[in-house]
């Protein structure tokens, strides 16, 4: 059983409500932070913890906090990014739905550290019922003196508001999120200036995701140094992984980043193995935008070493033979799954979600979707595969925000590792149309732990 810091109490009946959360030791971090620490030392603890942003980029949270501009008389804001929309990722939903006070507590401590008196949670519009849960938790915290004016008699004022988005994946990008929070289309801004200098309403702003801010609670409770002892290397603390696809036990798991990918997939404590007794074919380990890996490169690195569930090990080998931890959205595909169809589905998603601001992304995602659809339905040409490769290269790195990269990487990785499968579709148009994949030859035999 691994260490649990965020989900340890998630199954306690009534933990959604203040009274139970408090009885279980909740809001100790707020008391400690506001009464015993000052903002600078909280930032220091977060730095010492080694906490990396859990939204996908993995940038050190404490360092991000230290960039915030502190001009006198200018309000600063903390914004919680709850716009979880990356296919395969549903971990923040779990935190907010089942243990909302953990996030609220993390937000109060973080707001104090950053000097934010008005803090916003920007949540994806589709999570409408979670808005009600969060607003109730905020009201409860306020009624018990943990929010509002003069919190716990310390002189610190803080309000938290929930802003509901309206269906746009791009709003998960921090500057697009800020634009949306200002009541505009979610078009990403050119950086610099970074939000820490000019963010919400041109004021200094820090944007962190739900899991990152929730992790501030155990960091303050146990101290940054102790938190940093959990995990391995620069992958400190715990990470929430949302697992889905062809596995026996889809769900949200908290891991301490020391377990192997093989253990995560096959042990009963986590995914419980591949569903219906099938074999593992491939996996997208960090949300749809990260490169897909075939079974052999997923379980072992190109050097033949065991692959582990942490930032460094998952990215070992770069994109040529590795992938990324990303948001922790772990999508498992069995031997019957068609990589072309899967890639087409993701390309359709990115075309739909492109904000249209940058030509390479706006035009390129549409072309990739069309070409992949043609190949998937048996209407593709062999030259289409090279054309796809060419298009994704022209998108990557040529857009204002990372959505272009996110659209390009899945296509690049699919061609890199499964080119034969694309060629099979071109060479077998009738079978491709009938969805008779017949491609189980890609399911590499693997060692299944006893």
């Amino acid at each position, binding site marked *: 059983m691994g260490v649990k810091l965020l989900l340890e109490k998630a199954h306690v009946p009534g933990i959604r409500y203040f009274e139970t959360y408090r009885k279980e030791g909740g809001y100790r971090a707020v008391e400690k932070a506001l009464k015993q620490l000052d903002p600078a030392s909280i930032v220091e603890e977060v730095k010492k913890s080694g906490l990396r942003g859990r939204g996908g980029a993995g940038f050190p949270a404490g360092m991000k906090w230290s960039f915030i501009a502190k001009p006198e008389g200018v*309000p600063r804001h903390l914004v919680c990014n709850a716009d*979880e*929309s*990356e*296919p*395969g*990722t*549903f971990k923040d*939903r779990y935190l907010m739905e089942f243990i909302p006070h953990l996030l609220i507590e993390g937000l109060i401590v973080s707001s104090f550290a950053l000097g934010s008196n*008005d803090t*916003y949670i920007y949540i*994806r*519009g*589709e*999570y*409408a*019922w979670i808005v009600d849960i969060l607003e109730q938790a905020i009201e409860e915290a306020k009624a018990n003196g943990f929010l509002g004016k003069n919190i716990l008699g310390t002189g610190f004022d803080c309000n938290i*508001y929930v*802003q*509901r*988005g*309206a*269906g*746009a*994946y791009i709003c998960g990008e921090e500057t697009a999120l800020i634009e*949306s*929070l*200002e*009541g*505009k*289309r*979610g078009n990403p801004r050119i950086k610099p200036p970074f939000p820490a200098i000019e963010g919400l*309403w041109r004021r200094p702003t820090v944007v962190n995701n739900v899991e990152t801010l929730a992790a501030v609670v155990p960091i303050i409770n146990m101290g940054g140094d102790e938190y940093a002892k959990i995990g391995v290397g620069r992958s400190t603390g715990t990470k929430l992984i*949302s*697992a*889905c*696809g*062809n596995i026996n036990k*889809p*769900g*949200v798991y908290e891991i301490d980043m020391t377990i192997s990918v093989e253990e995560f997939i096959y042990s009963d404590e986590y995914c419980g193995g591949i569903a219906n007794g099938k074999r593992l074919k491939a996996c*997208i380990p960090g949300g*749809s935008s990260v490169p897909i890996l075939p079974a052999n490169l997923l379980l072992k690195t190109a050097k033949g070493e065991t692959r582990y569930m942490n930032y460094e090990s998952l990215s070992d080998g770069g994109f040529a033979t590795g992938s990324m931890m990303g948001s922790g*959205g772990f*999508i498992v*595909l069995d031997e019957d*799954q068609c990589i072309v*169809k*899967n890639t087409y*589905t*993701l390309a*359709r*998603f990115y075309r*739909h*979600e492109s*904000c249209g601001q940058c030509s390479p992304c706006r035009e390129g995602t549409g072309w990739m979707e069309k070409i992949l659809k043609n190949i998937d339905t048996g209407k593709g040409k062999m030259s289409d595969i090279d054309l796809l490769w060419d298009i994704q290269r022209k998108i990557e790195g040529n857009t204002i925000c990372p959505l272009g990269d996110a659209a390009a990487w899945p296509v690049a990785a699919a061609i890199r590792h499964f080119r034969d499968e694309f060629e099979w579709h071109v060479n077998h148009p009738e079978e491709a149309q009938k969805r008779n994949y017949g491609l189980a030859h890609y399911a590499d035999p693997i060692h299944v732990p006893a």
Partner: protein
Amino acid sequence: MTKFNDEQLKEFNRLVARYPEGKQKSALLPVLHLAQESFGGWLSAETMDYVAELLSITPIEVYEVATFYSMYNLKPVGKYMFEVCQTGPCMVNGCDDIIEYIGTKLGIKPGETTADGMFTLKTVECLGACGYAPMMQMGKHFREHLTKERVDAIIDECRKNAAANY
């Protein structure tokens, strides 16, 4: 004429009060949600103009937002809208069959509304329920682990509720 009633106006004021003086445009997305819920599940030009007036912004500022986000309906929809997720993990878990089944059962294609105005079928991109696939959104809530039997039960439930509230 499109106008919020007293209760809706109270909610409007609550939403606007979250933002600093002069930054009331920030309330646009939640106010459009409120307007959509209040005026038949969609945003007419008249509704959007009314929202612009309430927030003291220009109508074009409302139109450009309403047309950008996928959750705002710019034409009338059925009393019950089935928004079925078709992305990655839902596809892997058979959403194509579910979409086809709903369409056949209701006699409509994605994007269409039944003749009696009861149901609209829509395909959507990732809803963040990947571990509970296939799934769909119905109003404020998710319906997960869909099977043909569960779809049948949901449609029956909607028809019964509609008849009871007639």
